[in-house]
């Protein structure tokens, strides 16, 4: 069959060709041998094209009424004249070409539609290119590989063109060809049939398909969008994106109380910006989802001017009755009717509408109410203020379908938002509860510590006062040996130390307002360090002291600070035992004094770091566990705070921060 030139190879498409009669021809064997009308055919033609196919054509057409009169003479016309007539009445352009593709001749339709293009001797495919012909389908009557091979050779040097041109200047033709014999020569008859209407239908179909695809993508995205912010973002992106509904601008108005308030807008501010954005987008092959992700990451659309504009929109939902029917707002009417409409500047006399048109600088708006179960959630406004493209009925129809999904997604997102808020509230409440529980626990510990300390303090203080007081009394009029005086003085000193300790403990239990006095912090730090100097030297600890050269003055209770510093330095000294480094530093920075005490001892294990300020917690064998608790209390009473810092050089680094300004005792901290 592949070698059979007459066989009809293009299956169904072949039925469309004018030579429908060919279907009547035998499909196997040479027609010249099988057809009984061979003779007739010969007489019917002028002999110039004794082709099997023309005979077949003729065969169908023959009969008494087919005595065609090609001219006034009444003589039977030539076959080529017949073909001209036939193809002319069908609007079919025919080009005869040799097997090597060179054009032999073309009929008058071709001459009319493509003047000077399909000239004799020219390559058919070349001429086809020049004619800007775009074929919806090319097919040959030859089936199988041989037909395809010919098609390849004849058309475009190997490519069967099936593309649809986008340019309006291209002409859309259906192209098919079949072999004919011209005497001893084999020719191809290429037929070109205009398919412009079909092309338009096809385009419409394709555009519908694209819209459906976009809609389906948008719906998918609606399902993924959770918060109302995301949903509104998506609505506006879908309405304005070229992969969506392709409007220039879109605004979302939200029902807030008895008003429609502008919430979010998207789109360029003016033609210049539009050009900039659209030309950039034209180069990128970005999907709707990607655009959306881009906005989500940026926290919303980047159109700042449009954002400002939308914030200005505020429409009352209930119209002033005085407006009457004349001045009734068509926008608000659409909202009441829950029906999308197109409103133009000239179609409304309502001051509300006109005001909005003026504000947005547009003269036509698509107004799409979003409602769920008749409850209005918001309104979508869209326009083409840059391109001026008319908003069509089709646009409204699509937007209506879209609005249904959008409203549902919006409703769901509101529920989601509410749930999220409640969840967050619960989470916070839970967190507060835990914090309070911890504070309560701490308070209980402090209270227990207080009771114990008060009791112990009383039992010890009285004897101490007696010992110390009487010793002082004895010393005051001492006339004995200097050696004994020194011993008595030591007793007085030690008693003093114990009393100081008790004072600190009692202070911790019940902090009292003490008078603040002007002090020099540098002096205090130096003084405290001085009391440790001997011990530090004895233990071979390398001490680094960094103090400002100038005095750092503030109003404070020096005893509180001395107590805190002594504790920190004693701890550092105990941690180092007999080696390592200690650093004490005082710095002033932006209204704060930072005093840090660091040591290179073993450090505090990560899991214990949160416990160190707890009363009764200690890592020392002989510790009371109240040192750091007292230190923290003292610093808080000074209006500052103390933290354990992470530091690369010092395994343990405490930092005290004190405000240089006001230093009143903040009792609310207790």
């Amino acid at each position, binding site marked *: 069959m592949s070698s059979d030139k007459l066989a009809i190879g293009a299956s169904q498409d072949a039925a469309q060709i004018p030579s429908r009669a060919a279907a009547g021809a035998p499909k196997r064997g040479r027609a010249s041998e099988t057809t009984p009308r061979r003779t007739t055919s010969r007489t019917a033609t002028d002999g110039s094209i004794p082709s099997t196919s023309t005979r077949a054509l003729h065969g169908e057409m023959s009969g008494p009424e087919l005595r065609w009169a090609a001219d006034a003479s009444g003589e039977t016309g030539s076959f080529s004249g017949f073909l001209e007539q036939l193809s002319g009445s069908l609007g079919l352009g025919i080009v005869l070409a040799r097997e090597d593709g060179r054009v032999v001749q073309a009929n008058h339709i071709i001459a009319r539609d493509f003047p000077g293009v399909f000239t004799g001797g020219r390559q058919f495919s070349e001429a086809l290119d020049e004619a800007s012909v775009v074929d919806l389908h090319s097919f040959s009557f030859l089936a199988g590989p041989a037909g395809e091979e010919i098609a390849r050779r004849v058309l475009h040097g190997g490519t069967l063109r099936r593309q649809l041109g986008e340019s309006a200047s291209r002409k859309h033709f259906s192209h098919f060809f079949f072999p004919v014999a011209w005497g001893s020569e084999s020719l191809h008859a290429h037929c070109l049939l205009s398919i412009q209407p079909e092309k338009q239908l096809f385009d419409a179909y394709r555009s519908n398909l694209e819209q459906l695809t976009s809609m389906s993508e948008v719906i998918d995205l609606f399902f993924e969008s959770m918060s109302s912010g995301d949903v509104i973002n998506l609505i506006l992106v879908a309405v304005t994106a070229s992969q969506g509904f392709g409007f220039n601008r879109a605004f979302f108005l939200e029902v807030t109380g008895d008003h429609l308030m502008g919430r979010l807008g998207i789109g360029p501010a003016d033609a210049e910006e539009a050009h900039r954005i659209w030309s950039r987008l034209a180069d990128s092959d970005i999907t709707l989802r990607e655009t959306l992700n881009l906005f989500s990451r940026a926290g919303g659309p980047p159109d700042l001017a449009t954002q400002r504009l939308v914030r200005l929109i505020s429409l009352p939902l209930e119209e002033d009755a005085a407006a009457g029917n004349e001045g009734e707002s068509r926008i608000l009417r659409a909202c009441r009717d829950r029906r999308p409409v197109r409103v133009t500047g000239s179609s409304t006399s309502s001051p509300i509408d006109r005001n909005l048109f003026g504000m947005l600088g547009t003269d036509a708006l698509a107004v799409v109410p979003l409602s769920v179960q008749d409850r209005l959630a918001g309104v979508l406004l869209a326009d083409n203020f840059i391109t001026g493209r008319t908003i069509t009925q089709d646009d409204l129809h699509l937007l209506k379908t879209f609005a249904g999904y959008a409203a549902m997604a919006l409703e769901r997102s509101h529920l989601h938002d509410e749930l999220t808020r409640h969840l967050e509230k619960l989470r916070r409440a839970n967190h507060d509860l835990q914090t309070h529980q911890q504070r309560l626990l701490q308070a209980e510990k402090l209270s227990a510590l207080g009771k114990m300390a*008060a009791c112990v*303090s*009383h039992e010890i*203080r*009285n*004897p*101490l*006062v*007696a*010992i*110390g*007081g*009487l*010793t*002082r*009394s004895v010393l*005051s009029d001492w006339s004995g040996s200097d050696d004994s005086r020194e011993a008595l003085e030591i007793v*007085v000193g030690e*008693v*003093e130390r114990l*009393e100081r300790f008790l*004072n600190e403990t*009692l*202070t911790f*239990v*019940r902090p*009292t307002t003490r008078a603040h006095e002007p002090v020099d912090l540098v002096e205090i730090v130096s003084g405290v360090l001085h009391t440790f100097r001997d011990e530090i030297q004895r233990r071979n600890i390398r001490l680094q002291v960094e103090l400002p050269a100038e005095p750092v003055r503030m109003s404070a209770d020096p005893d509180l600070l001395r107590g805190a510093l002594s504790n920190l330095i004693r701890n550092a000294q105990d941690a180092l035992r007999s080696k390592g480094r200690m650093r004490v530093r005082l710095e002033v920075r932006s209204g704060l004094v930072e005093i840090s005490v660091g040591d290179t001892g073993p450090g505090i294990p990560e899991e214990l770091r949160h416990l160190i300020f707890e009363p009764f917690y200690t890592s020392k064998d002989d510790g009371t566990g109240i040192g750091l608790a007292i230190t923290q209390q003292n610093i808080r009473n000074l209006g500052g705070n103390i933290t354990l810092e992470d530091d690369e050089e010092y395994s343990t680094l405490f930092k005290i921060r004190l405000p240089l300004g006001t230093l009143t005792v903040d009792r609310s901290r207790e």
Partner: protein
Amino acid sequence: MKKILIADDEVSMRKLYERELAKEGYEIITASNGKEAMEKVRQEIPDLLVLDIRMPGMDGLHTMSCILEENDELPIIINSAYSSYKDSFMSWTADAYLVKSSDLTELKSTVATVLENRSVCL
């Protein structure tokens, strides 16, 4: 010579105050509890009372209110091992509130000041 009544349940404490305040030139009488203090105030009519708070039986604050009912002219210095009673409104009626210390400098100066103020008032 001004007469000072020391009320403290601990004998060593009484001894200390007696010894030290006598050195300052005051006449010292003592009481070992609240009840005794009240009696001594009535009988001896001191110029100043130095009162401990924590005493067995009637505590210092109670004693003070009883004494003040009879004689609201008597200056009183509270001398306690606790600083926490400072906040008690009862203690506000005292002329001074001191936390006990082996260093009696503050007590001595307070005694002098209170006595001086009172003599000015009278």
